């Protein structure tokens, strides 16, 4: 049975990460880009960053 998950990765690191995950048996289904607000521990620090949302499948 196919099972899916999502990886959020910064565009600059995406291709390397996808290649590494492909070596572990994960395949890319689709991707989209969005802006994330990151909340650090206990919400004390917030930063924004552009992220790729990559849907991965493992069979």
């Amino acid at each position, binding site marked *: 049975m196919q099972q899916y998950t999502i990886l959020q990765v910064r565009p600059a690191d995406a291709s390397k990460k996808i290649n590494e995950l492909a*070596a572990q048996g*994960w395949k890319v289904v689709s991707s989209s880009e969005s802006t994330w607000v*990151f909340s650090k*521990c206990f919400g004390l*620090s917030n930063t924004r960053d552009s992220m790729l*949302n990559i*849907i991965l499948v493992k069979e």
Partner: protein
Amino acid sequence: MKKLFRGLVVGLFLLFAWPFFLYKRYGNRAYRPDGNTLIVSNHYSTLDAFFIYLLYGRRRIYFVTIINVKEKCLSRFVTWLFDCLYLDYEKTNFNFFKQCASILKEGGIVCIYPEGEINLLKFGFFEFKRSFIFIAKRAGAKILPVFIYPDYMPFRRTKLYIGDVLLPEDYGKYEDLGEAATFVQSKIMEYSLLVGKTKPPLEVTAMLPPELTESMGEKNDKKAER
């Protein structure tokens, strides 16, 4: 003395808030860390560390956190109580790495969240930073991958999937730190598929292939039980 005080505070806290801190263990349930172990987990909630404490709190566990938590009284008190190691994003953190490695070499347990930020989606993963592999390699430590799926509602159980311990030779075969970090992340991603009911949020569901909602749903629940 601090351990006694911590036990008292945790006991009082659980006395009033226990319905929120019920959990169920999956996977390698019998395992107990015996020292020189780096616990690596995903980070969906600020209370993840507390669940790790509930799981293995009989041993002293050092939690890695960012130094910003010292800015507020309550978070400073909590991190003091739970033996935290502080990481500063704006500095090189040589002392932090040294401290982690020496704790592990002396037979200690360190818990780290390699994503470095809380995933508010409560679904999926950020990429794992590679520094935890650097620490583990330097100390020759075992890595215990854990997947935590928190449930904020009372009387609902948080899911904790305890993975198989990764020995130094398991992750050491990857010379590149990034590849080794992806190897550990891949393990935790696989565990996330085994606990069931980790449904994607609505905005993510909209862009997923149609078969996803079937495969990610409650069908996985039976598979999770071992």
